[in-house]
């Protein structure tokens, strides 16, 4: 098996047959995140300077914590990210996640997720690469296009 060298910038992109507003809702509303984002419950007002929090499905554990840096619904959201779901990642420096949504032809939107400033968070970088963001984004696409979460 080859191992991937973790970089401090990761970029993911997906085309989704949905409006930017629908994608914004999928990112910012717990009734959506619970169906594609590892069952997590998003909890934020998305006002810059306020917390970005993601809870376990029963809201007993805080999985991700950060601060909203920049918010321009339904086109752009940027926030810091600390992975609290794992003891190894919880002590690392915060990194940054930016969501960019661009409308395309034919009823599609392009969603780009940039996870960067990972210099002080190598374990987080490893955790979100590979299946991490890839599963989240393919799950969001399936949910928005079919109304059903991914089966597995």
């Amino acid at each position, binding site marked *: 098996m*080859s191992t991937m*060298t973790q970089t401090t910038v990761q970029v*993911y992109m997906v085309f989704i047959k949905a409006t930017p507003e629908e994608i914004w809702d999928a990112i910012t509303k717990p009734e959506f995140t619970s169906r594609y984002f590892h069952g997590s419950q998003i909890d934020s007002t998305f006002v810059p300077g306020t917390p970005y929090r993601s809870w376990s499905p029963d809201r007993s554990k805080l999985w991700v914590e950060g601060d909203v840096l920049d918010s321009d619904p339904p086109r752009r959201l940027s926030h810091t990210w600390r992975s609290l779901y794992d003891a190894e990642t919880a002590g690392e420096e915060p990194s940054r996640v930016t969501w960019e949504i661009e409308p395309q032809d034919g009823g599609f939107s392009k969603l780009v997720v940039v996870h960067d400033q990972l210099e002080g968070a190598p374990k987080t970088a490893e955790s979100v690469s590979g299946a991490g963001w890839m*599963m989240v984004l393919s799950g969001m696409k399936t949910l928005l296009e079919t109304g059903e979460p991914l*089966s597995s």
Partner: protein
Amino acid sequence: MNDDPVFKALADPTRRLLLDRLYERDGRSLTELESELEMTRFGVMKHLRVLEDAGLLVTRRSGREKLHYLNPVPIRLIHDRWIDKYTERRVSALADLKHELEESA
């Protein structure tokens, strides 16, 4: 979006090699990628363009440089669409067998 550009992009050894290079180290410039291939700059650019059109890589500007990032999401979507549906159980049995045979070899 349809799968054709992804399958077409993957149906070329140079393009698969470029993806493997980005998998090893992501966020590379054309100059870096070009230095590892025995091919003209123009040839590498053409292959990168096909990969970008298929969504298998995303480019971002960093100062004066254009950096190339591997985007594995389309491969995941092909997995969801094709592997899960038809062959996951059989493929994983064969993958286990291959793994076992190679381990013992």
